[in-house]
């Protein structure tokens, strides 16, 4: 059992056009419990992707700390980017194998469970966007990470495809649980997926409120319950209405 403590006291960048410093993240604290699925919700452009890049160690210019407790280690990260970012010159299977040392059986299981059994040897350019996104999700899961980051992985998919992908994601997550940070600006999507919602303000980004989602997982496919929860959310937390 482990916990992940994220504390970013300051992340700024200098605008090269006018040499002014802009603060993007200010005093942001998030704690993730074991196997918890957390959705970050906030207006677009508020710095969510910056936060994920910091967590993935792609951006190291910030002050703060990210550590797994109790062992005080850097978390190993699996990242599902907004674009699938697959290597177009490698097949689906090679793309996944390159990122992980997982056993072949695990890969087969993951590919099957995401409905890609027939596409193992295809090249990514021959897949639809929805399929490519699923491959990139498999790649992240296959690395067996301490923390899974997902940056709006279902954006710009048509609703049925997105719904199917969400369902597959949750099924996969139930069998192979991980701590997940899922970025979204679609509140319904966030409610469907998350154990807990974290609302973020923009410039500088900081946590406004945290709300646990109380709908049992088996009822999450009922649109009406999601909608009720959403309405109630606006009543209980009026501060979030202006974010969305």
């Amino acid at each position, binding site marked *: 059992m482990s916990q992940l403590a994220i504390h970013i006291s300051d992340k700024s960048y200098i605008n090269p056009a006018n040499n002014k410093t802009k603060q993007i993240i200010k005093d942001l604290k998030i704690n993730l419990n074991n196997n918890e699925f957390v959705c970050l919700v906030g207006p677009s452009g508020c710095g969510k992707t910056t936060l994920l890049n910091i967590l993935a*160690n*792609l951006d190291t210019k910030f002050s703060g700390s990210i550590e797994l407790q109790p062992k005080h280690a850097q978390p190993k990260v699996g*990242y599902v980017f907004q674009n699938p*970012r697959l290597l177009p*010159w490698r097949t689906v299977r090679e793309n996944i194998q390159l990122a*992980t040392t997982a056993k072949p059986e695990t890969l087969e299981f993951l590919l099957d469970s995401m409905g890609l059994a027939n596409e193992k040897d295809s090249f990514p350019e021959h897949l639809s966007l929805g399929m490519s996104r699923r491959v990139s999700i498999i790649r992240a899961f296959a*690395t067996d990470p301490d923390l899974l980051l997902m940056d709006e992985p279902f954006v710009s998919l048509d609703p049925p495809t997105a719904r199917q992908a969400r369902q597959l994601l949750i099924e996969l997550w139930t069998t192979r649980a991980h701590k997940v940070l899922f970025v979204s600006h679609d509140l319904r999507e966030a409610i469907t997926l998350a154990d807990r919602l974290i609302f973020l303000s923009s410039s500088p980004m900081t946590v406004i409120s945290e709300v646990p989602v109380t709908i049992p997982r088996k009822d999450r496919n009922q649109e009406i319950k999601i909608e009720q929860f959403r309405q109630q959310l606006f009543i209980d937390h009026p501060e979030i209405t202006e974010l969305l």
Partner: protein
Amino acid sequence: MPFTFRPSVLALLSISLFLALWYGLAIYLNTITLPTPFVVANVLIDEINSGQLPYHLSKTLYRLLLSFSIAMLLGCAIGITLGRHKQLDCFFDNWLVIFLNVPALVTIILCYVWFGLVESAAILAVVINKLPNVIVTIREGTRALDKDLLDMAKCYRFSKSKTLRHVIWPQLHPFVMAATRSGLALIWKIVLVVEMLGRSDGMGYQLHLFFQLFDVASILAYTIAFVTLIQGIEILILKPLDKKAQRWRR
């Protein structure tokens, strides 16, 4: 597709037309400095049978392949390094410009003066002439690398060699092929000059000899042999390589 529109038929037609024009012009001018294709073909066969042409051609080919390989390997390594490190690039950019603009003849003469009329000086002269071109092409390719894929590789902790092999190299492939093609064309011209100035075998040496004898038929025969060989390299080696590397594209 009608018979006459097939690529192979078209190619045959165009080459026949070229030979016919050549033949007509040679007959019309009736001069010793433009022999007919038949005369040239005869000389070509004689030269092949005597073993002269294969010997000198193989010498030239050996120099071409050796200097080409050295220039490509070094050029790729330096090009990738410069493309990835901005400060290094700023510093060495001036050197590149200098080397790009030194005339080929100057490098050849200097190499022979400094290192003597030896094989290694000849190879070095060719490499120095070709290297800046490779570096510039590969550097452009490296600058255009997809940052998103590099971030992905970093995030999933790809090792350096893995990143090079699976992320960087496939993106550089078109640039490497461009450098290869322009390189072959450039290098074989320079090799001939190098041989003419300071070697006692190879195509360049032979051409120089024929020039002094005003033997145009032999010059043309050697040219045909060489052009055929380079075309062979293109069709048998480069095209299949290209095809294999492009199979992931839609």
